[in-house]
């Protein structure tokens, strides 16, 4: 199907991500990111037609918080939409903003993802997604050790543990370049073996050091029609929204015991690459911002997104090709393991990918031209949103 019109990303704003943003309330924290996005684009709130908002209500226990947040979003008197899809929310918001601009209904749309996890109980909130009759007793929030166990079975304990730790430490190196990142630990490769033994175990071999944070933070993106985007960016590079795909699946993670699971990640990647003529993603995509809730999932999911079989993705990690200076940079921002305000997290992936295309990612800009960037969102029971950004108007 042909897109009605091109949509460009013209501004990005992020609050500082931290475990405790006690000095601001929710609208104030959102306001930080809104102001930064407007300044980045070089426009004012008067130029925005519609504001799209999303997060998970039960994390902060605020019902339809866009009503209160209007104090910080600037949406007063404007058209709005509120969309939420669990962890994928931020990416879904980006898709929604893209749809709204492409539809011709609005020329400039601002998308806002936020979470203030400090104000609630994150693991309790996530456990609450499970069916109260059948699954809630078994749910351990977002903590699942299954992938660690699977990778250890497949690749052997030593190799699997080492790879996930290399992945973890590279992510921390990246976070050290990103002043907004929440966890910037200053890890070095020689600490890996020790950390794999001493970091507190959460579930099996999923340890504290592997797992993403719980953060407070907001991310804002501004989308505009081709005409408006060119007018707003005044010759500066624009990140164009080339295509997006969403693949959800059923409520249960595993229904049939040991049967191999065809993941939504692989399905989405296959479809998206096919639709956009991408034959060799590692060669054709310059940077990938991946929603990696833990370094186990990050290591395992690279294989799915890049349509690899066997241990090719593992080799990419072992050879440290995913580093910002490597052949296939992954998460130059530090990724989800560094910062995780859930309703914003997936949007941060899109926003960071956009900054890379614009060439405006600052200290964590990858040292080569970015023509094509990939961003993923993850949520629910292994749901995927995958999107492709380019530096040229795509249609």
């Amino acid at each position, binding site marked *: *199907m042909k897109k009605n019109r091109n949509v460009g990303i013209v501004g990005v704003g992020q609050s500082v991500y931290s475990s405790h943003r006690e000095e601001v309330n929710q609208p104030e924290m959102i306001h930080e990111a809104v102001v930064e996005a407007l300044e980045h684009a070089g426009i004012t709130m008067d130029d925005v037609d519609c504001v799209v908002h999303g997060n998970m209500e*039960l994390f902060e226990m605020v019902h339809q918080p866009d*009503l*209160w947040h*209007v104090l910080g979003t600037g949406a007063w*008197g404007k058209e709005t*939409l509120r969309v939420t899809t669990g962890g994928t929310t931020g990416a879904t918001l980006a898709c929604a903003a893209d749809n709204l601009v492409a539809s*011709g209904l609005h020329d400039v749309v601002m998308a806002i993802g936020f979470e203030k996890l400090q104000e609630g109980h994150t693991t309790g909130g996530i456990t609450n997604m499970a069916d109260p009759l059948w699954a809630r007793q078994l749910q351990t929030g977002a903590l699942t050790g299954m992938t660690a166990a699977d990778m250890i079975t497949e690749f052997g304990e030593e190799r699997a543990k080492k790879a996930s730790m290399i992945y973890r430490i590279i992510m921390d190196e990246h976070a050290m370049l990103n002043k907004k990142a929440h966890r910037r630990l200053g890890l070095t490769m020689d600490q890996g073996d020790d950390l794999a033994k001493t970091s507190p175990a959460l579930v099996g071999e999923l340890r504290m050091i592997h797992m993403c944070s719980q953060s407070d933070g907001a991310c804002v993106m501004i989308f505009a029609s081709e005409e408006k985007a060119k007018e707003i960016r005044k010759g500066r590079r624009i990140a164009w929204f080339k295509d997006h795909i969403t693949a*959800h699946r059923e409520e249960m993670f595993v229904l049939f015991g040991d049967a191999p699971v065809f993941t939504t990640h692989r399905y989405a990647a296959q479809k998206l690459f096919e639709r956009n003529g991408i034959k060799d993603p590692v060669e054709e995509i310059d940077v990938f911002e991946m929603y990696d809730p833990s370094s186990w999932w990050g290591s395992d999911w690279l294989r799915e997104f890049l349509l690899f079989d066997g241990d090719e993705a593992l080799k990419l990690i072992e050879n440290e090709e995913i580093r910002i200076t490597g052949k296939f940079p992954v998460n130059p921002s530090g990724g989800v393991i560094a910062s995780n305000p859930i309703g914003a997290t997936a949007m941060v992936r899109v926003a960071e990918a956009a900054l890379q295309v614009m060439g405006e990612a600052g200290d964590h800009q990858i040292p080569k031209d970015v023509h094509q960037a990939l961003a993923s969102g993850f949520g629910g*029971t292994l749901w995927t949103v995958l999107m492709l950004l380019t530096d040229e108007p795509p249609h």
Partner: protein
Amino acid sequence: MKRVGICAVAQTTYERNKWHQRFQGMALEVLEQLLAATGLDFSEDGGINTTVSCSDDVFDARTISDNAMTDVLGAHFRCEEKVAQEGLQAVYYAAATILSGHTDVVLVMGHAKESQSASRNMITHLAFDPYYTRPVGLDFLAAAGLQARAYGLRSKISEEQLARIVVRARENAAKNDRIQDLAQVTAEEVMASELLADPIRDLHTYPVSDGCVGMILASEERAKTLTDNPVWITGTGNCIDSFFLGDRDYAGNFPLQKAAERAYKRAGITDPAKAFDVAEISDQYAYQLPMWAEGLSLCPENAGPAYMDALGKNHGPAVNPSGGMLAGNPLLLGGLVRAAECALQLKGEAGGRQVPDAKRALAHGVMGPAGQFHSVMVLERD
């Protein structure tokens, strides 16, 4: 704007307590009707390729409330996105996904079971900020009480006029086969019913209800192949007002006027009072029906009470032939049910509540304390 077609509509009945059905059961009942009506399935080749659901985490007491629904909404490796806002917004968003060219057939499905919570006020209380307004004990009912008082002072609406709005809603509901177990009442009974938030009385209030509503939307080309009588979405508009009640003129209709202006402009409507055959308005409380009628420019400011008295005798649209929200639709789905009712009217499938020869209809949804957010949609048939 280009046209998006509503091809099929289905609703469960709305009841005080559907204890015998879970959310998924209600949705399956609606989905099966929609698939039967259109012959669609979820195949990759020409099937439904996007679902826009509408539900709320707090009402469902489920984080990611759509997660529980994916099995019955065809979301197996498909796009499913949840609008966590007033239900009419799900139709607006679904229409946008089609207009964007990203998809051509969308399933819209909204569900809510208000019977599950001890009180809806407990839920809407959580919409207030935890620092200033929550400690005062505000909820949507209390905020509506303040607005009802302010509107009463402005429009001089009488107790009798408010009571007649409720009596009329229930008379209309008796012709609506989707409304169950709702008693007829007299004006005297309404005026004698318990005060909940002065001046709002128990019978002025939309009844607790459980239910599910769905529709199939398609691009103009696809819609013509899926049904003989598509209903076209020709205009949408919404608007949000500020949050603190003290910052707002809640006796006025600022956000609704803005929302309506936008929808009318997109639909090319210049004289709204004469433009519609049917208007389905989200009246959570009796005072809202005349107040929103003013905001929608169906009548002049302060003429709402007289406009209600003259319904059926004036030349305006049939207002809430379904019974409206006063007949019992979940808070979250008010506007979505209104759009579904408009579509049924325009398709000529509204049964006992059919308005003869309806060609153009107006659907309205509202959310937030004292009407903070409004959404408006214009629907037409060929």
